[in-house]
C-alpha cells in the first residue's frame, strides 16, 4: 500500500474507486475448508476486478449450504434466499423487472438437480441473463449427508450406504437445454474459477458454471469424484482461459494456432489457450462428446465447454422499454381515461 501523504495507508481501489473490502460479505458459517467459501472469494475477486458496482448486483439462491453462501459475499448487493430449487423463477422475475441489474445465482446439486431441475431447464430455455453457479458436491450437507442426484453410481456414504443410481450431469443438461455458456470448474482451481466467472459475468445470456466444490464433512473421501484429492488428481483443464477487457491488448506469449480468441457482446474477449486437448467450444455436439468421454474415463474436464453468442436473450424477446420496468411510474403505467372509455365500448 502506498502512503497518501496523510500518514494513512491508501487502500488499493478498482476503476470505480472501491476497495476489496467493499465487496466483502458477512462471515461465513459454512464448514472450514468448504469449497463454497473458495468460490465466494472468487466471486468477490471477479466483481472487484471487473469494477462491478455492488449495488447493481442481485445475489439469489435457493435452499442448501451453497444457497446460504450469497450472504458471505458482497453485502452491498441485495440478496434473496428463496425456496428450494426455485431460484431460477426469482431470477426470471427479478431480471425482467429490472434489466439493468446483474444477476448472480448460487445453487447446489441438491437445489438444482432435484426439485430445481425443471426451473433450471426453463431458465436456460428462456436465456435469462444471469450467472448460474452450481456448487456441486454430490451430497446434502444441511440435512446431514444424504445422496444428491449428482452423486456417483456406487458411491458410499456413511449413513446412506451405496448409491445405486446414475448421476445427472448438469453440464450435459445445460447443453441439451441450449444454454449458450456452459463451463465446469473445480473449487480447488481458484484461478480458473475466477477467469470463468469474469467471462460469465460478461456474457449476455444464461451462463452456467458447474463447479465441483467438495464437502469436507460428508463427501471428501479420496474415491469420491467430488473430493479435493480426486479433483486435484483428475482435473484436466481443456485450455488456459483468460478474460480480457475490451481495451486491453493481449499480453501473452502467443504461439500461432494455439490461441482461440472470442469477442463477447460487450467487446471484451475470452482468450482460450490450447493445452494438450483440442476442444472446440463452439461445437455443441463435440461438447456433449467430451462430457461423455471424460466421464467414462474418470477425467474431470474443466474450462469452457460450450459457448454460443447467437441466442436472443429473454429481455430482447420481450421487447422491453429501456428503463427498468420496476422504475416506471404512474404516468407510464396507467393508461388514459379516454382509452378506458374506448375499451368499454367493446362491451356495449
Amino acid at each position, binding site marked *: 500500500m502506498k502512503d497518501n501523504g496523510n500518514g494513512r495507508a491508501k487502500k488499493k481501489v478498482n476503476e470505480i474507486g472501491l476497495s476489496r473490502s467493499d465487496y466483502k460479505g458477512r462471515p461465513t458459517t459454512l464448514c472450514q475448508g468448504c469449497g463454497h467459501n473458495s468460490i465466494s472469494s472468487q466471486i468477490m475477486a471477479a466483481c472487484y476486478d471487473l469494477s462491478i458496482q455492488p*449495488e447493481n448486483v442481485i445475489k439469489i439462491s435457493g435452499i442448501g449450504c451453497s444457497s446460504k453462501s450469497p450472504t458471505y459475499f458482497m453485502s452491498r448487493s*441485495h440478496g434473496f*434466499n428463496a425456496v428450494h430449487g426455485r431460484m431460477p423463477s426469482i431470477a*426470471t*422475475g427479478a431480471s425482467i423487472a429490472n434489466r439493468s441489474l446483474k444477476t448472480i445465482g448460487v445453487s447446489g446439486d441438491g437445489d438444482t438437480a432435484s426439485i430445481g431441475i425443471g426451473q433450471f431447464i426453463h431458465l436456460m430455455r428462456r436465456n435469462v441473463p444471469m450467472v448460474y453457479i452450481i456448487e456441486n458436491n454430490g451430497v446434502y450437507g444441511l440435512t446431514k449427508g444424504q445422496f444428491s442426484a449428482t452423486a456417483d453410481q456406487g458411491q458410499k456414504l456413511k449413513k446412506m450406504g451405496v448409491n445405486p443410481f446414475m448421476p445427472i450431469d448438469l453440464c450435459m443438461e445445460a447443453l441439451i437445454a441450449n444454454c449458450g455458456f456452459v463451463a465446469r470448474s473445480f473449487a480447488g482451481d481458484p484461478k480458473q474459477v475466477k477467469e470463468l466467472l469474469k467471462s460469465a459475468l460478461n456474457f449476455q445470456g444464461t451462463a452456467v458454471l458447474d463447479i465441483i466444490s467438495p464437502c469436507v464433512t460428508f463427501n471428501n473421501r479420496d474415491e469420491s469424484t467430488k473430493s479435493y484429492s480426486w479433483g486435484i488428481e483428475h482435473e484436466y483443464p481443456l485450455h488456459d482461459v483468460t478474460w480480457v477487457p475490451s481495451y486491453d491488448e493481449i499480453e501473452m506469449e502467443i504461439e500461432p494456432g494455439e490461441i482461440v480468441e472470442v469477442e463477447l457482446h460487450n467487446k471484451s474477449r475470452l482468450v482460450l489457450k490450447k493445452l494438450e486437448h483440442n476442444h472446440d467450444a463452439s461445437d455443441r455436439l463435440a461438447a456433449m462428446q467430451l462430457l461423455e468421454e471424460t466421464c467414462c474415463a474418470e477425467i474431470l474436464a474443466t474450462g469452457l465447454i460450450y459457448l454460443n453468442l447467437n441466442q436472443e436473450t429473454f429481455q430482447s424477446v420481450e421487447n*422491453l422499454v429501456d428503463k427498468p420496468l420496476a422504475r416506471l411510474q404512474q404516468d407510464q403505467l*396507467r393508461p388514459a381515461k379516454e382509452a378506458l372509455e374506448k*375499451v368499454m365500448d367493446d362491451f356495449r
Partner: protein
Amino acid sequence: MSKSQVKQKEESDAMESQRPIVNDFTLVVATVNGSGSQTSNLALIRAFFRMGIPVCGKNLFPSNIQGLPTWYTIRVNAKGYTANKLKADLLVAMNMATFRDDLKDLKQGGVCFYDDRLAEPADRPDIIFYPIPIRDLVHEADPPKQLREYVANMAYVGVLTEILEIDIEEIRSALDTHFGGREKSIALNMKMIELAASWARDNLPKRDPYRVERMPRDEELLLVDGNTAAALGAIYGGVTVASWYPITPASSLAETLEYYLPHLRSDPETGKATYAVIQAEDELAAIGMAVGAGWVGARAMTSTSGPGISLMSEFTGLAFFAEIPIVIWDVQRMGPSTGLPTRTSQGDVLTLRFLSHGDTLHTILIPAAPHECFEFGWRAFDLAERFQTPVFVLSDLDLGMNQWVSKPFQYPEVDMDRGKVLSAQDLEKLGDYGRYRDVDGDGIAPRTLPGTDHPLAAFFTRGTGHDERAIYSENAQDWDANIERLWRKLDNVRDALPAPVVQRMGDAEVGIIAFGSTDPAIIEAREYLSGEGLATDYLRIRAIPFSKTVEDFIQEHEVVYVIEMNTAGQMHQLLQLEWPALATKLVSLTKNNGVPLDADWTFEAVRNAEEQRHEG
C-alpha cells in the same frame, strides 16, 4: 311477489298461453362442445342486452375440446334478476345424446325448439314443440363446406329471432361486434339467420307466450365477464410483470392481459413494452417470477385456480414473511384433478386465508361483479405495495367466465400507492437503514429496491430468521419483535379494505351474509322471502380480514344465514373464528354442486331454516 305466488303465476301463465310473457324467461341451448355454438349464444345475449333487457349468460361446459354436451343458459328478466335458473322456460335442443334429459329440466308447459332429426318424445304433451329442419336450412344457405356445422348453429338464432321477436338488427350488430366488423363473416352468418327466420315466419305459427320487447337502455352498462374486467383493472393498476400458467377458469384473465396490453401499455415513441407477460412452466414458477419481480419493485401478479393455488403455497408464505408485494388472482373451480374443473365453486376461502406453512394470514379481496373485478384489479396493487404483502383476489368460474351485465368500470380516482420505498437520497439523509425496522410505528417498515445506488441500500431477503436489519438471526427475541410488528401491520390492513355492502329491509331480525358471485341469487331470493313476509337484511363481504361492520351486522340480528358455495361452510367457519361469542347466531347454508347459485334454492334454504328455527 312471494315465491309461491310466483310459482302459481308461472303455472297459470303456461296454461293460458295466450297471455304474453315479456322479457322474463330462461332459455337453455343444449349443444355439443366444440360445435361453434358460442358465437350463436353470444349473438343472442348481446342482442338482448342491446335491446335494454337485463340478461345473463352462463356456460355450463365440460372439460373437453370436442364432443361432450354443453349447455348455455340465457336468462332475460325485466326486473333485473340475473341469477342462474335451473328450470328453463325455453330449450333449444341440438344434442341428440342429451335430448331426453334436457327435456326433464324444461319446466311444465315449456317450449322446445329442436333439430328435426331428433325424435319428438310422446310423453311430454305439456311442451310446445317447434321442430327446425336444420339440415335443409343449412343446405339452402349453402355455406362453405368446412363452416357448415358452425353456421348450422345460426339456424336456431334465426328461428328464435322470429318467434321471440328479437330485433334482427341487434343480432346483426352483435355479430358485427363479434367479428370485429369483418363483413364476410357477418354476411355468411346473417344469411343463415335470415333464411331461418323467414322459414319460421312461413312455417311455425306462434303457439307460446314468450317474447322480448325493447326496454330503455342504460348506455353506460357493459356486457362482460369478470376475467376481462380483472385484466383491465390490473392494466389500469399498472401491472408490469404478470406470470401465469394455463388453467381453467383463470386462463382468460392472462390472455386478456396479453390482448389489451400491447394497445394500452406500449411506449408511444418506441412501441416497446412497459410490461412483461410470461407463460411460466408451471404455477411454482409463475409465482416465483411474480415474487422476484415484486421484490425488485415491479407491480407483479399471477392468476390461477385452486390447483395452482396449492402449488403456490410455499412461495406465498415466503412472500408473506419476507414482506414482498404480489397480487394473486384465484378464479375458483371445483376440487382437484379431473371431473369438475370447469364448474364453479367457492371452496378456496379457508385455503387462501391461511395458505402456506407456519402462521400465515392473508389479505383477500372478493369481487361480486365485473365492475368490482376491475376496481379490485387495480386496488390490489396499491394494497400489496402499501402493506408489502401478498394480496389475493377471490373470483370464481361463474364470475370470471360468464357474461354479466355490469356497471361501467370507474377510472381509478386516486394516485397509485407505491408504498414506503426509500431512494438513495432518502438513505443519504437517514444515514442508517434497517429493512425491518418500524420507524413509523405502523408496522410497515420501508423497503429499498435492488439497484438503489447507495451503500446502505442493500439487505438480504429470507423467510424467517432475520433481525430488523435483515441480518440472519436465530435469536428468539429478534423473531418475537418481528412477528409482533408483522401482525400489527396486518391488523391495519383491515381498515384499508373495501367495506362490506349492506342492504336492509326495515328492521329485519334475519340477516344474510354472502360474498362473490352468489350476489344476484341472494338479491332475488330476498325478494321472494319478503313476499312471504320474511324481511331480511343482507351483508356482502368484500374483503378479509373482516370489517367491524360485519361484527355489528351479526350483533344486530337474531340469526344470520351465511350462504356459500362450498360444503364445509368456510366463510361461516372464518366468521365463527373471528367472533366466537357470536358463533351461535350464525347458521351455515351451503350448496356445492358446480352450478351457479340460484334464487329458488336460496329461498327454500332460508325459509326451511327459518321454519326450523321457529319450531326449535
